[in-house]
Structure formats: C-alpha cells, structure tokens
C-alpha cells in the first residue's frame, strides 16, 4: 500500500479485463512487508483528521476561495436541508454553481446541520441546483464531506434511496462540467450522490469509503473495535483512492492538516479547481458527457472464468437418499470434484437463512 502525498496525477484507468485466466485471479502483487500496527496508526490518523471538527467545511472554504457567494435554499418540494448547501459563487473569475455537504463547527450548529448527514430534501435541493446550472450553462463544483446520508426513519419515508439514486443519475447526464472535491469524509452513497464528476479531486487527508470503518468492522469482524483494521483493508485514504483510479488528483494540505491553515488549504484548492474548470469549460457538452460516461464505465475490474459447464442436475429419489444414509462416505463422494459452477445442492435455504443481510450504512 502506498502512502504518497504529493499532488499527483492518477495512473491511467484500472485495467478492464474481459478475458483473463480461469479462476479468480490474484489481486495486486503482495505489498512489501509493512509494520501492521504502524500502518494502522497512520491510516487512522487520517480518518481522524478527515473527521476533525475544526476542519474547514464547504462554506468556510468557499468564503476563503470565492467571490460573490450567494447561497440558495430549499428543494421546492418539502423543505431546506441544512446538511447540504448550494448556490452561486465565482472562482478566479469563473461563475459556478456550488453544492456541498455542510457540517457544523460546534455542537449547536452540528445538530442543526445533522452532522452533515443529508435528508432526501438535501439531495433534491442539489438536483434542483444542478438543473439550474444546466439551464444557465454554469459549471458545477461539489464539495463532499459527510459521514453518510441520514439513516433516520423520516428519511426512509421520504425516499432517501430514491433521492440518492436520482441525484447520481442526474449527475451522470448533466450537460455542464462537474468538478468534485472530497474535502473530508466521503461516506458511501450519501457522498456519491453529489460526487459524480468529470474530475474527482481529494484533499490529502480526505477519506472515501463504501461504508464507515466502524460499520464495516461490525459486519465483517463482528466488533466495531476492529474499525482501524477495516480502515486499512478498505484502502480509504486519498492516496489509495488515487491509486485505484477513483480519484484523479490529490491536493496537498498544510502540515498538521487543513484546519491548521484554512487559508493555505483554500488557496491550494482554488488553484486546482480553477485549472480543471479552465480545461473543461471550453469542451462541448457531448464530449464531456461521453468522457464522463467512460470514466465510470471503466470502474470495476472483472475477469472471465471461461465457459460454464452445465451438467444436468438430477433430483435424488427416496432410494438414493436411503442409500446415502446407509452407505458411509457415499454422500461426500457424490457431486464433488468440479471446481466450476453447478455443484449446487438442493437445500441451500438453510445457509441462506444464516446469512444476515449485509447492510451498508448511510
């Protein structure tokens, strides 16, 4: 696992193998031996920096890097979600529509903003602003920093999943440039809902994961204590995400983290965002869309295990079942030997029932 921190371009897209060796190919070559404890501590330090309450959030960063910031409110259907902010801003002369998660700086504000965990109306506000950006021909810049979408019952009633799904779909087809920055926590679907872009950037101490380390640990390790192991296994640091091709560029932070010098962080961020906007804005919408589609189409490596053999599956009669019971060893020898598919037994239900559904967290 690398842990490089400089501002670096991503390697070319992850290979998309359509034909490969049979059987499950091994992953990347084994990393050189590292001190597990040291690695765990280093990764966990980043998780804590990403979650630091003093870390500058969307509105603070914009205040430092943009002019004429005008916040717009409401989803026009239900309400205004304080966990997602959005509106107009100007970055180095370029007018943009911004959208971002907003955490609070202290407890009271954090409660009001639900700790940056949006409700469905937050995502619907975001979609409304994306549509506005498209109509005005303004590029969209999004700032991602959320533990995840709010998992409360009211959000389920109002269609949290539908709001996230539709927001993702809207972004894949938006006919204006989209630049996304993971500034803090990139928490699963609640982050991705506003993080589908032509370019995806990340601050050096940002993290991005499919589930929180704690959630992953309680499902796979069956104890939240293993969160640090989960954080390492999921490779959630910005540097790892760059290597995986999920992130295109990592932006360095001041020594000690973004909160130690918000101005310097915002300056670095502004420069990189402006550079990408300058490259994207002149492009034709069709070209943008095609490239964005390709960017995501490439993500995910699969392999081929060759053609499937399909032996006819025979149902056992009573006589066979009886023989299974009477002749020791007969059962074991039957129906084995093929490492490919179709060794299925008829009574899978018992194993199904034991499998708890693997819920993701918001």
């Amino acid at each position: 696992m690398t842990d490089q921190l400089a501002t670096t371009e991503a390697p070319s897209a992850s290979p998309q193998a359509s034909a490969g060796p049979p059987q499950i190919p091994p992953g990347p070559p084994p990393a050189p031996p590292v001190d597990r404890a040291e690695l765990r501590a280093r990764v966990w330090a980043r998780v804590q920096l990403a979650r630091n309450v003093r870390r500058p959030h969307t509105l603070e960063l914009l205040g430092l890097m943009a002019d004429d910031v005008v916040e717009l409110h409401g989803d026009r259907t239900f309400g205004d979600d304080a966990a997602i902010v959005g509106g107009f801003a100007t970055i180095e002369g370029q007018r943009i529509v911004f959208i971002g998660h907003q955490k609070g700086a202290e407890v009271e504000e954090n409660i009001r903003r639900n700790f940056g965990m949006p409700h469905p109306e937050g995502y619907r506000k975001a979609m409304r602003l994306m549509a506005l950006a498209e109509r005005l021909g303004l590029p969209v810049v999004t700032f991602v920093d959320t533990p995840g979408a709010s998992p409360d019952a009211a959000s389920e009633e109002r269609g949290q999943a539908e709001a996230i799904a539709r927001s993702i779909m809207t972004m894949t087809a938006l006919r204006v440039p989209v630049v996304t920055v993971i500034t803090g926590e990139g928490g699963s679907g609640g982050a991705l809902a506003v993080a589908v872009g032509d370019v995806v950037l990340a601050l050096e101490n940002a993290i991005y994961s499919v589930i929180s380390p704690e959630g992953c640990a309680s499902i796979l390790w069956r104890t939240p204590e293993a969160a640090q192991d989960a954080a390492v296994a999921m490779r959630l640091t910005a540097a790892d995400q760059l290597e995986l091709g999920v992130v295109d560029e990592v932006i360095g932070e001041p020594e000690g983290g973004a909160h130690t010098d918000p101005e310097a962080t915002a300056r670095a961020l502004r420069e990189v965002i402006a550079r990408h906007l300058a490259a994207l804005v002149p492009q034709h919408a069709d070209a943008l869309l095609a490239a964005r589609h390709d960017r995501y189409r490439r993500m995910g490596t699969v392999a081929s295990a060759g053609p499937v053999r399909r032996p006819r599956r025979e149902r056992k009669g009573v006589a066979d079942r009886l023989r299974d019971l009477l002749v020791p060893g007969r059962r074991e020898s039957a129906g084995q030997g093929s490492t490919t598919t179709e060794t299925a037994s008829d009574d899978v239900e018992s194993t199904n029932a034991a499998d708890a559904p693997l819920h993701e967290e918001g």
Partner: protein
Amino acid sequence: MPVNLPFRPRRDALPTDLWTQCPSCGEMLYHKQLEKNLRVCTRCNHHFRLRASDRLALILDPDTWEERDADLVSVDVLGFVDTKAYPDRLTAAQATTGARDAAVRGVGRIGGQPVSVCVMDFAFMGGSMGAVVGEKVTRAAEDARTERIPLIVVSASGGARMQEGTLALMQLARTCAELARLAGDGVPYISLMTDPTTGGVFASFAALGDVNIAEPGSLIGFAGSRVAAGTTGETLPEGFQRAEFLFRHGFVDRVVPRHELRDELVTLLRYLRPVERPTIVGVAEAVVTGDPLVEVAADRRNGRGPA
C-alpha cells in the same frame, strides 16, 4: 464410529431437507408443496427468497432464456482481508451456491415480448454488488438500449460489496449512468424489488424503474433498520422498510404477489414498449433523401442509424 440407521430419532421427525419452517408463521411446510406453491407459505403467504434460476423460470416464457456474460467472476483488486481473505469468501460462496457471482443476466421473452433481464441472487454473499454485478446490470441496460427491448432488473441484495471498497460504490454511478442513457433513448425499465433490496442497490438502479414493483413483505430500505433505530433512538413505524411501507410512501407502483407476477409483467410490457422515435439527425436525413420516417426508425433499431 457413529451408527448409521435408516431411521431418525423421533425428535428429528421433520428432517430439515424435507421440511422448512415458515419464518413468519412457524408453519412446517413440506418442500415439494412449497416448491409447487412458488415458495410462498400456504398458510400466511410469506414469500421465501428465490434463487436466480427459479426467478427466471417463474417470469420468462419457457425455453427463451439465453444467458450472457456467464463467465464473469470477481477480482480482488484491494487485496481485502478481514477474518477471511476475499478470494476465499468468493470460492466458498461459489461452492455453496453453484453460482459465479451474485447476478445472472441475459435475454428472454415474457409473453412473447423480448426483454433484457438481470436477476440478482441473494444466496451469493448476500447478493452484494461488486464489479461483476455492476457490470452485468450495466451490460443488461446496454443490450436493452442497442436492441431496443425493455429492461427488467430483479434486485435481491444487502447492498454494495464491502470487499471491493469504493470500486463497489462506483457501481452505483456506473449503473445509473447507463440507465440515464436508456431513458434518454426511450427504452423502458421495470425494477422488481424482492427480499431484501437495501443499501447501495436500492440507492441506485433498483429505485429508478419507470415502473417499480415489489414482492409482498420484502425488506426494502436504505439504511439497516437497526442503524435507523440505533442512531436516532426512535421507535420505528409499523412495517418499517417493508414493500407495503414503500408503497404507502409512494416509491413503489405495485406490490405484486408471486402468483400474479408473470401475468402482471406481461400486461405491463404491453405498455412499456420502446418508442420508435427518429433522432433529429434522422429526421434531417429523411427530409433530404425523402425517406419515410418509418425507415429511419427501422435503421435506428437495427443499429444503422445515428447513435
């Protein structure tokens, strides 16, 4: 060495391989009868989970199934190890289920209407979505678009596959991107949500059907209900995250019992036909050449027209 008797002790009078207890009403159900009743409890109507092959047999016209991309298998890109290494989990799941991953896809017919179908299989690692599932859903949508036939995706999944990290998360974007193209091209999509449809699968393609159907009693939700209750300390409403709950709140068009599912799909597909809509370029060509628009549409359908 244990003595093998042709009898079982009396307390095991209901051997597990012949009887299944309904988790909902406790009734002991004879396997053959349960299978005959499409794995629906004869007493309380509880819908048991279906394997992908059973689902296909249920909804498709006989002998019309043509599987595609059956060869795809997952790759351990992250080198993920929890209490077990990911490749070992995959191998174990393949051995117990006989499937290669958590979805199958292909084309078939329903009531004579050709359709592109992708069916998820909960038995394989909780139906979790990694790159293979994402690829199959995406390719099913691509084929639906290029062949101009409706898309049907049957979901049964706990969500994104943690062992593939953010690359599993990216499958949400990947599948939604293809659905956006499909909708843009006027090809309809039916999402069938079965028990369970949660997490990243519900928060992507499953929620986005032109028509959303759910099986009765299915668990359908974004966050795990324990998460919901634990985080907020609130008491959850009756039937929280069940198909009927989704229906009541307007996110599911119809809750359809399994016995009526096929007929329902046949009827819906009478309406959900791809539009034969010439593109602007096609119209321009037709005007220039004097071709009737019908031919433009036909060209387009056959892949000769403008993309």
